[in-house]
């Protein structure tokens, strides 16, 4: 399980990192925590000859709680999401979800930026960010731009990020809604979701997104609208229509749809209890 050889770079600032990405084109990749990329490299499924490590760039990690929104640096680890008390107060669903990702060792190194940029439908943060209506900041040769999490995912491992762009931060509006839940069905600790649901619920408001039930995360406007009106059955029906699970080692399609319904109902119940 040894990856193919590559040249290693540890630039000290964003401009140098982008310059490396421009210079080496699709031969180059950035590495954050490496806990999705290194397993892929070991399996020789990621082909690259230049690795650009972001750990030497200052200012890419940290959590800032502002007036109406929270900004999280891309290199902030999943462990930091769990241990930040102010964040748990402002956006508690983040901590609830992070606690269900992988295991302690993975969370010490795995970053939020890597989790959302990766594009693996199994990652938990993308669906959550869609539920929260987060915005990603991308920096590239032409400067900075913002992309909504809901517009970012195109297909498995294909996102709106250009090869020479780096995701630097995630901005999350602090939810007014008191009800929230991230519920995930997995076979064991450290497993990706068979199905997971993120729910926000408040006065006349709801937001619903699902994980690992299509080749992208699925945020459903129709399911959210139904739940906002208190129509739980309508919400589940719409969400099940929006997903498109594939058969794999986690089970056949019919089973996944069943689990998706169960998990979404559990998430709604939990969110309702917290909203009350």
């Amino acid at each position: 399980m040894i990856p193919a050889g590559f040249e290693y770079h540890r630039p000290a600032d964003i401009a140098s990192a982008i310059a490396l990405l421009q210079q080496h084109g699709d031969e180059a990749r950035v590495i954050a925590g490496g806990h999705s990329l290194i397993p892929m490299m070991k399996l020789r499924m990621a082909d690259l000859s230049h690795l650009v490590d972001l750990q030497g760039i200052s200012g890419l990690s940290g959590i800032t709680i502002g007036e109406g929104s929270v900004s999280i640096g891309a290199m902030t680890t999943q462990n930091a999401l769990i241990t930040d008390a102010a964040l748990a107060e402002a956006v508690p669903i983040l901590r609830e979800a992070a606690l269900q990702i992988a295991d302690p060792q993975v969370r010490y190194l795995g970053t939020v930026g890597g989790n959302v940029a990766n594009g693996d439908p199994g990652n938990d943060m993308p669906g959550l960010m869609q539920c929260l209506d987060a915005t990603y900041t991308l920096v590239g040769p032409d400067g900075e731009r913002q992309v909504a999490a809901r517009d970012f995912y195109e297909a498995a491992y294909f996102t709106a990020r250009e090869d020479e762009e780096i995701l630097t931060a995630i901005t999350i509006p602090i939810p007014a809604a008191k009800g929230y839940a991230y519920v995930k069905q997995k076979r064991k600790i450290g497993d990706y979701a068979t199905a997971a649901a993120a729910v926000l619920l408040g006065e006349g408001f709801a937001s619903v997104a699902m994980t690992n039930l299509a080749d992208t995360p699925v945020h459903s406007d129709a399911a959210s609208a139904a739940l906002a009106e208190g129509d739980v059955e309508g919400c589940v029906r719409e969400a099940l229509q929006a997903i498109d699970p594939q058969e794999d080692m986690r089970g056949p399609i019919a089973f996944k749809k069943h689990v998706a319904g169960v998990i979404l109902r559990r998430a709604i119940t939990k969110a309702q209890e917290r909203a009350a």
Partner: protein
Amino acid sequence: MSKMHVKLTVNGQEVEGLAEPRTLLIHFLRENLNITGPHIGCETSHCGACTVDMNGKSVKSCTLFVAQANGADVTTVEGLVNEDGSLGVIQEMFREHHGLQCGFCTPGMITRAHRLLQENPAPTEEEVRFGMAGNLCRCTGYQNIVKAILASADALNAQKEAAE
């Protein structure tokens, strides 16, 4: 691919070496430095047998390039002994409570438990189980591992109190 010069602190000592950037930290420790406490169980980031402490975090050294660890401060199970070379508290408690059978998972278990107890000196049984979820054991059924870690917490806290 050309080799790069790496320099890190392992168990309190500065070490240097030449390695291909793709060398995994576990291979560098075991093959270049002859530090064979950290084990290779799965090499796929699942079992935790390769766990070492890096800059105050428990990490799986099979999922980290030595290039990424360049400049880091690493502690392995060998670094957790007392100054006189006798078994450290957690090591002693694993022995006393029969927290191992074949011993293959043990270096990873002890290194992870070390960090867990640094962060949470008085954990509940549930917190120990959750905090140890990245380490697999095929022999013990975990019962005695949990016991050994809870006993370590008590012993370490008693030691701290006595010192005050």
